[in-house]
Every structure is written in C-alpha cells, then in structure tokens.
C-alpha cells in the first residue's frame, strides 16, 4: 500500500494512520518512510533507522516503522562495488575506478536510484520477514511517479544491456570456436550481474503492478486537487492500481460564517474530485484543531477503518 500526494497535504499522517488502522485489524504492519524530510520521526516520536522500530500507541496494536536513507544506501552500494573491484581490476586501473565511483555517488540520479533499489529490497523481502502489510510513505508526487515508473523502465533497459552483452558473448564464442579454444569455465560475471538485476527489477515491477495499491492524499484546495487528478491518470498509465482518494483537513460544519464560507469552498473542490475521479472512493478526514500528534492517530485510523482500509 503506497501513499502518495503533493508535499504538505499530510501524507505522513495518513500513512501513519493507515499503518495504525492496519495494525488494529490484526495485521503485522510496517510503515516505510522514504520522505527525505524525516517527518515520520516528529509524528511517532521514535527515530526510525534502516531496521524496523516498533511504535506503540495508547490505543490499538503496535506497528513498526523503518526509514530508508538514500544517501547511506548509495554509499553502501558504491563501497560494495569498490570492494569487488579490488578483486577483479588490476592495481593500475583501481584509482580510476574509485574516481569514477565517487563521481557517480555525487550525481543527482544516484540517490533516487538508491532509494528505489532499497525500497524494492524491502518490498520483496516483506513477506519473508513476516509483514502482512507494508505502508509506504512516499516522497512528494512528481518524485513518486518517477519512482514508481522506474522499475518497468529500468528492467527494460537492463534487458537491452543484457542482450548487447549476450550478443558480444555469442560472437566471442564463435571466434573461440574457430580458434579451437575452450569456453571459459566461469560464466560471464557481467552478464550474470545484469541478469540478476533484470530479475530483481522485473520482480519489483510485477510486485508493484500486481500487489500494490496507491492511495492518493489531497486537501480540498485547487492546486492539490488538480495535481492529484493528474497523478491518478499517470499512475494508471504506469499500470498501477489506485485505492482511494483521502481528502484531508476538511473543516467541520458550523455556524461560524468563516467556517461556512470555507466549507462551501471545500465542497466545491470535493465535488471536483468526485467529478474527475468518479471511480475512486473518497475518504474524508477532518481538519484537526491542533497539530496532529501520535495521540490523534487512533481517531484518524478509525475513520480509515470505517472506510474499509
């Protein structure tokens, strides 16, 4: 279950509430934060790390939280490669390899890829690790979209690289055949790695397509609504299943003229969501009087549970 939406609409709150709701219905639940703003720590009062940390609330069953540190993941990845390189690369080339790896670490795409890579690992390992449900608090919308479309794009790309490598290996084998040389004992390490990568990426792609549900969070205002509609279309095109639209921070009805005016305005945007995404159920969460805290989660998760989530 993935929770996405524009920045500042309360994704983290909704994700945490969903996790609480899921835990309350008896599922072993893991909340995964990918938001670089570390907002989950402020909400749940524990500092999540790369390993799951339990979160206990006064009411309801406990659940766990984990945060992916993209920077650390990228660094680990590069260090692992550098260690491998030391075994296969002649000493003369090693400094050049190290330079190249360091340059890659600094490039902007690397962290995003590292984030996705780790997320893929967590999702693929979830069942084996005993989690019934994983709730992912994603980074802001544009980012999420790119992230979710990537496994599909990348498994195709890696397949292309693998094809090229296999073409090369076939030709080389023919040349070896002519020269009456034996085939090498060990399989080609490059092809083996590319194949492994392709399989993982394809598994993540399939998992996202077949088992993931994306819930979109928005608030009843113009920009967030417009963007949510756009995101819904794009995510569907990418082959992802959509769950509900959570409309957060809806004002309660009241006699106050200000509240009444806001209420009318919000109703208009709620109608717009209904009109543009008629097939998606809507769940309305109230605007709380104070900053949301861990203690508020049971109330919000009760609403979500009532909505069948």
């Amino acid at each position, binding site marked *: 279950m993935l929770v996405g939406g524009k920045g500042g609409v309360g994704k983290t709150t909704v994700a945490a509430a969903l996790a609480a709701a899921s835990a309350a219905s008896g599922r072993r639940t893991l909340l995964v934060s990918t938001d670089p703003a570390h907002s989950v720590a402020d909400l749940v009062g524990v500092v999540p790390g790369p390993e799951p940390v339990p979160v206990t609330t006064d009411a309801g069953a406990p659940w766990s939280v984990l945060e992916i540190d993209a920077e650390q993941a990228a660094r680990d990845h590069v260090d692992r490669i550098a260690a491998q390189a030391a075994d296969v690369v002649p000493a003369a080339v090693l400094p050049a390899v190290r330079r190249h790896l360091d340059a890659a670490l600094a490039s902007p795409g690397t962290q995003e890829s590292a984030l996705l890579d780790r997320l893929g690992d967590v999702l693929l390992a979830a069942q084996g690790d005993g989690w019934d449900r994983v709730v992912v608090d994603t980074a802001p919308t544009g980012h999420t979209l790119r992230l979710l479309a990537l496994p599909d794009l990348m498994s195709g790309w890696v397949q292309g690289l693998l094809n090229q490598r296999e073409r090369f290996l076939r030709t080389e084998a023919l040349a070896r055949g*002519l020269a009456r040389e034996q085939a090498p004992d060990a399989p080609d390490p490059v092809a083996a790695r590319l194949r492994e990568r392709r399989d993982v990426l394809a598994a993540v792609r399939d998992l996202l397509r077949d088992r993931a549900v994306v819930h979109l969070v928005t608030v009843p205002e113009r920009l967030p609504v417009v963007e949510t509609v756009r995101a819904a279309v794009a995510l569907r095109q990418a082959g992802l299943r959509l769950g509900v639209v959570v409309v957060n921070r809806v004002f309660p009805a009241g006699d106050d003229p200000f509240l009444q005016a806001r209420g009318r305005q919000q109703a208009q945007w709620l109608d717009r969501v209904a009109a543009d995404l008629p097939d998606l159920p809507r769940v309305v969460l109230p605007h709380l009087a104070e900053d949301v805290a861990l203690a508020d989660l049971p109330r919000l998760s009760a609403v979500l549970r009532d909505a069948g989530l």
Partner: protein
Amino acid sequence: MPAIVVAVGVLGVFFLGYRYYSRYLANKVYGLDPAFVTPAHQFNDGIDYVPTNKHVLFGHHFTSVAGAAPIVGPAIAAFWGWGPALAWIVLGTVFAAGVHDLGSLVVSVRHQARNIGSLAGDVINKRARVLFLLIIFFLLTLVNAVFAVVIGNLFVANPGAVLPVLVQIPFAIAIGQYIYKTRSSALAPSLLGVAVLYLMIWVGEQVPLDITPLADLLGFDQPRSLWVVLLFAYTFVASRLPVWVLLQPRDYINSHQLFIALGVIVLGITVGLDRIVAPVVNDVPEGSPSVFPFLFITIACGAISGFHSLVSSGTTSKQLDKDTDARYVGYMGSVGEGSLALGAVLAVTAGAAATQVEWEALYADFSTASGGAVGNFVNGVAAFANNLGVPLELGAVFAAVVVISFAATTMDTGVRLQRYVVQEIAEQAGFTPLARNLTLASLVAVVVPMAMALLPGGGEQGYTFGVLWQLFGTTNQLTAGLALAVVAVWLTRGRRPTLPVLVPLVFLLTMTAWALVVNFLSFVEAGQVVLAPLDGIIFVLAMWLVVEAALALVAARREPAVSLDGQTEDELVARRDRG
C-alpha cells in the same frame, strides 16, 4: 609449344624476379629494416594489429587479392596472341606489380598501417584523397557491373552450375556452424564439404536450371539481364549481413576452390602435355583495338592491379611481423596473382581449343573474344581436368562454379566497400542524407553498377562486356597509379632511387590515358550517351592524377631530404608514451 614448357619458363622468370629484383627493391629502394618496430607490434591489439607468421600472412594476403579478375582479363587479352599477353603478365608482375604491392605495403607500415586513401591525403595532399575516393567509386562500380555480367553469362551458358552455386550458400553457413560448435580443425570437414559440393556439380548437371522461360515471361531482353537483376538483389541482401555470417564462410570455401583449380591446371597440363594452339602473335582483324594501349588496360589484375594496394595497406600492413617480411608477402602476392593469370592464358590458348582453326573461331574478333573469354577459360579448365579423367561437361561446370563463386564474393565485398565510399563522398560533398543512411548508400552501390550491367551494348552481347571490362581496367590502373605516386613521393623525400616506381607509373598512366582518349572518340562516334561521358569522367580523373603526382614529385624534390630509415623521433616518443 607444350603449355607446361611455357608455364615453367614464366614461373622461372617470376622466381628470378623474386630472387634478384625484389632483393634490390627491399634493400636499395625501400630500405627494409629488421629493427623497425612494425605497427603489428606497436599497436598489438590481438585483433587487427597482430604480428603474424609471414607464410600465414601471405596466405591471408593472397586469398584476399585472388579473384576472378586475373582470370577474365588474360582470357580476353589472349585475343592479341599468347605472346603479348604473357609478356605483359611477366613484365608487369616483375617490374610493376611487385614494386606496387611491396611499395604500398612498406609505405603503409611506415605510416602506422594507414590505408592508401588516407596516405594519399597525407603524402600528396588533401585533394588526392578526394581523387582516390572518386577513382575507387568508379573502380567498384565497374567491377560489380562486369562481374554481374560474367556470372550472368556463365549461368546462361552453364545452367548446371546454378544448383551447386545456390547450394554453396547454406553449405558455407553449415560448415561454419560445424567448426564453431565442435572446435575441431576445419580441414577434414572442409575437404568433405568441398567433395559434397562437387557431388552437387554432378546433380546440377542432371538438373540444369535455365531461367530463359522466366526471363521471357518477365519481358527481359535476354536471360542474362534477369540474372544480373537477381545477382544485385542477392548482393544487396548479402552485403547487409555481418561479414562473418555469409561472406567469410563463402570466401573460405572459395580459397579451397582456388587451390583446387590451380592444382587442376598444373596437374592437367603436366599430365596431358596440352599444346598451345593459339598463335604467339594473333593477326587481329581490321578495326580491332590495338595491342598498344589496350592490352595494358585489358589485363590489370594479373599484371598490375591497384586493388592490391587496398589490401596491402590498411589490412596486411597491420599484421606484418618484421619489416623485412614485406618483401616476401608483398612481392609474392603479385607473383601469385601473375601465376593465376598465367593459368588463365594457358587455359584459353591450350585448353579451350584443339587446333589453331578452332581457336581462331573463338577469338575471331574482339567482340567475340571478350564475350566468350570466360567461357573459353571454363572450357579450357574442363579440358585440363579431362586429362585427369574428369568428364568434360563436369569439368566445365566445376570451372564455372569456381569463377562464379569468386566473382560473387567480389561483388559482395565490392558493395560493402562501395557504400562506405558513397557515404564518404556524400560527406565530403556535404550531402548528409546519403552520408548518414547506410541503406540508401547500399542502394546507390547496387543500382549504379546494375544499370551499367544492363546497358544494351550496341546490339551485340559481347560489345558491352569488352568495353565495360576495359573501363574497369582503366580505373584499376588509375588506382595503381595513385598508389605508385604515393610511393614515389615518399621515396623522393628520402632521396631513394625512384626510377623503379616512376617507370611503371609513367607507363601505366600513358597507356590508360591513351586508351581512354581512343575509346572516348569511338564512343562519341557511336553516340554512346552513357559510356562517352563515363569515359570522359575517368579521363579527367586520370589527368587530375597526372597533375597531382607531378606537382607532388616536384615539390618533394625541392624539400629537404627526410630519413625514411627506422622510426622517426615522434613515433618513438608516441610509442614510449603508450607504454
């Protein structure tokens, strides 16, 4: 005179040429240096640049340059009698081809194994590179046109050859697959394969494939034209495949056929003691092309061929182990080609006819001679094979299969080369759509020679062929001329003896220009709207070459002398930097 005596005599002269003249060339002219670090060592990459044993390298070189051309030219040139034809083959091989093949190899080795086109731009000037591209364009266009006609004629005359030639294609691929898979030596399967191929000759004889009805149905003027179209269609497709898929396996089978054909000729004339029935000097009918200058453009490959400089430079030069090996590889390459030409002359003068009267009918006039030349060669080889107990009909199909196979792989190679030439000319001319599009370039490389091959030649079948062949000869000689000019300029800079290069250069250019002028006048007279301008363009290229060569030589003479010995300081520094 028994053919074997002539053969021994010619081979004896070749031997003396190699023994003495090539030694003079190697020591005094080219200054081969055993200490020179050849590009094969300097840039050894295990693929293109590989120091190779000189006998193996000679094998690569010879099988690359040997083709159908040294068969067709001499077979036509026997028209003037076997004396002039053999004299030009012997003198050309010893004093022109040897100098040219060895020279282009050495110049390339001394310039990081670059090819002759880029050397022309470097040693002469930038314009010379464009000139080179244009000459090669016409050379390849004409070679593809004449070989399409040769193959078409042979298929029409020997319908029994169609099946074996067709079967050869899957066969070559299958042998390749077998060698790849089993990692065994290729010798036994290849011998078996060639044996089965020759069994197909017998089958082909029972099932001749004559396309005349189909050609009539499709409205072709003659069956040959349908073959020409089919051949170019095949070539277009084949040239789009990677080289190793079809071209290399076919070339490989061809190499076996080359050695078998040479063996049949040598053994045949030894066992049968066939006598040469053609006159030493033929009394040609009035109005025929004269020996001077036409003999010298009719026999190009076999006496001197510019095509060899393309193989010497850029390919063979990358694999030369020692500088001094160049003498053996380069000079013997031309001797090998000369020997093939010798075989062709003997086949058409001793094998093709039993009596002088019979022979004179085959070579009655130039049109008959050129049109029937390849057929005469085929029948001649059949007669030699007959001495060894092979039935005449089978021998003829065998020889036809050999010539067709050679010509077909030459067409495939030619189209591949031509599309790069087309792309580069387009690039130079700033015409990017053609320069960037390989399919379009291939189409140009196929359609232009096809149009040329289909050109009706004044009503007589042979006329077009003889004329096209001579035009091909002129472009081949111009290519050789350009390579010789490069060698001469390089030698002049080093103040080395240049006469051995200048004499063949001047002789070739004179004969070529002379022939082009005579032909131009007769084309204009006959109202040949395609051949006259084509001849004119080639003449302009020839004059351009004369001017560039003369200017470059004069300039080189004025420049301060440069040492050609060993590596230059820059090269050694570059080498050290590369580690």
